[in-house]
């Protein structure tokens, strides 16, 4: 497989919640094995971009191709089967399911997903607590469960929304290691991240969003020279 194969492309994507026009013509693309972040302030439209890719917004227009397939008119439940795994900001752990049931819930979308044994090896806490109610886990454990859940399905494009939010530094470090390991496996990752210091060393590229537009694209090697520009956009 070529390393430059395009996995995901958004062209002129607009998204709406009812009357609210949230995304105003987003263009972005990811090649296989890339880890790309969406940076921006709260409300810039980063989470909505991920939700638009999953068809979880009220209405969306434009073009979204996943693994080469146009999905703009596809019903929501068919999109994951193109190889997408979505980890929502609120983590989406089901309280009426135990940890194991949560882990096994999403259907397999491709054949080469990680096995349950591999995942328990990667996240030993989940194994110990596999029969606990999903929402009784700590925040960090819930985040690991939300991640493990989509890794089991074999999804090779991951959309991760604020996975480090509110977690202890040691857990954030662990998640960083996991992302690097996934990237080495050839997975393509689109990461919405507030914690720039977490994202900067592991990402290949960054898109900066503001008011529902992509306003800047920054390569990893340009970070130093564009630092002041980023500071203006991110208000850090």
């Amino acid at each position: 497989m070529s390393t430059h194969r395009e996995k995901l492309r958004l062209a002129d994507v607009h998204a709406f919640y009812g009357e609210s026009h949230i995304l105003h013509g987003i263009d972005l693309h990811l090649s296989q094995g890339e880890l790309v972040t969406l940076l921006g302030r709260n409300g810039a439209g980063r989470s909505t971009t991920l939700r638009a890719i999953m068809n979880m917004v009220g209405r969306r227009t434009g073009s979204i191709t996943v693994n080469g397939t146009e999905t703009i008119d596809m019903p929501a439940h068919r999109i994951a089967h193109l190889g997408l795994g979505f980890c929502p900001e609120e983590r989406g752990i089901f309280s009426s399911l135990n940890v194991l049931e949560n882990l096994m819930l999403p259907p397999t979308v491709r054949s080469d997903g990680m096995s349950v044994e591999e995942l328990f090896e990667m996240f030993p806490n989940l194994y110990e607590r596999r029969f606990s109610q999903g929402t009784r886990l700590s925040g960090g454990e819930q985040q690991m469960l939300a991640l493990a859940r989509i890794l089991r399905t074999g999804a090779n494009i991951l959309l991760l929304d604020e996975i480090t939010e509110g977690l202890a530094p040691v857990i954030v470090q662990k998640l960083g290691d996991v992302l690097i390991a996934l990237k080495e496996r050839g997975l393509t990752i689109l990461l919405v991240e507030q914690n720039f210091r977490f994202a900067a060393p592991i990402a290949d590229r960054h898109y900066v969003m503001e008011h529902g537009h992509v306003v800047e694209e920054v390569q990893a090697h340009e970070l130093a020279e564009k630092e002041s520009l980023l500071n203006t956009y991110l208000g850090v």
Partner: protein
Amino acid sequence: MTFLGINLFGLFGQLLVGLINGSFYALLSLGLAIIFGLLKIINFAQGAMYMLGAFFAWMALSYFGMNYWVALVVVPLVVGFIGILMERFLVRPIAHEDHLYSLLLTFGVALMLQGIFTHVYGSSGLAYAIPEELKGGTRLPFMYLPNYRAWIIVASLVVCGLTWWLVEKTKLGAYLRAGTENPQLMQAFGINVPLIVTLTFGFGVALAGFAGVMAAPVYSVSPEMGSNLLIVVFAIVVIGGMGSIGGAILTGLAMGVIEGLTKYLYPEASTTVIFLVMVIVLLLKPSGLFGKEA
């Protein structure tokens, strides 16, 4: 036979009637609870579906000579299919509206079905013979137990137990529980939630159809049989807690028994005792005995 001044024949007789009624309460409130859990709508047509079950059993026997045992399998499937059509073509188009609309819609469907059957068959009620295999009874030391009544209790317990297992212990049930919590995320995982909703509605309605077939030989088959029962069943769902599967089953049986006991101790209160319990539960634990706190 008396013991400490208690007429045991009378007491056990009423307890048995209570258990029978409780079996029907359990089946009907279970169907309501499953549908409410996933669709968040209250299916007012559940009573009419129970009535359809009884009528279809009667019609199958009278017109096609289909015996009770075959009807017990075929009729719930037919009623369930009607439920699937109802969800697909009536409930789904208004699913995005306020749930009051679907409540009114299902109430309207119930009234129409009841009206049609009253028009065709009259309101006096039809008789359905107890199947040959279950005629007769067993004389126990303290009571006479008709075989068919014992069968009702066993069969409804088995069906309720299987349903509980299906919802709480299987992968399909995990989809159902997760869909109850966050249908949108389920879709994003690649699960066809609309299909699950349709099948769930069909299954909940089929449970009512099953109860209807079971009821045909013991209650008279009449257009009003469903609406009479449904009000009590709603009270039971409120007592048990909306959306709790195990709660619906246990509360259904328990309320039947409480009703039976009241019939023995103070018959005048037997028709109101369940509503009294409902009021007390609502005051003390508004989410119901088995409901999750909101």
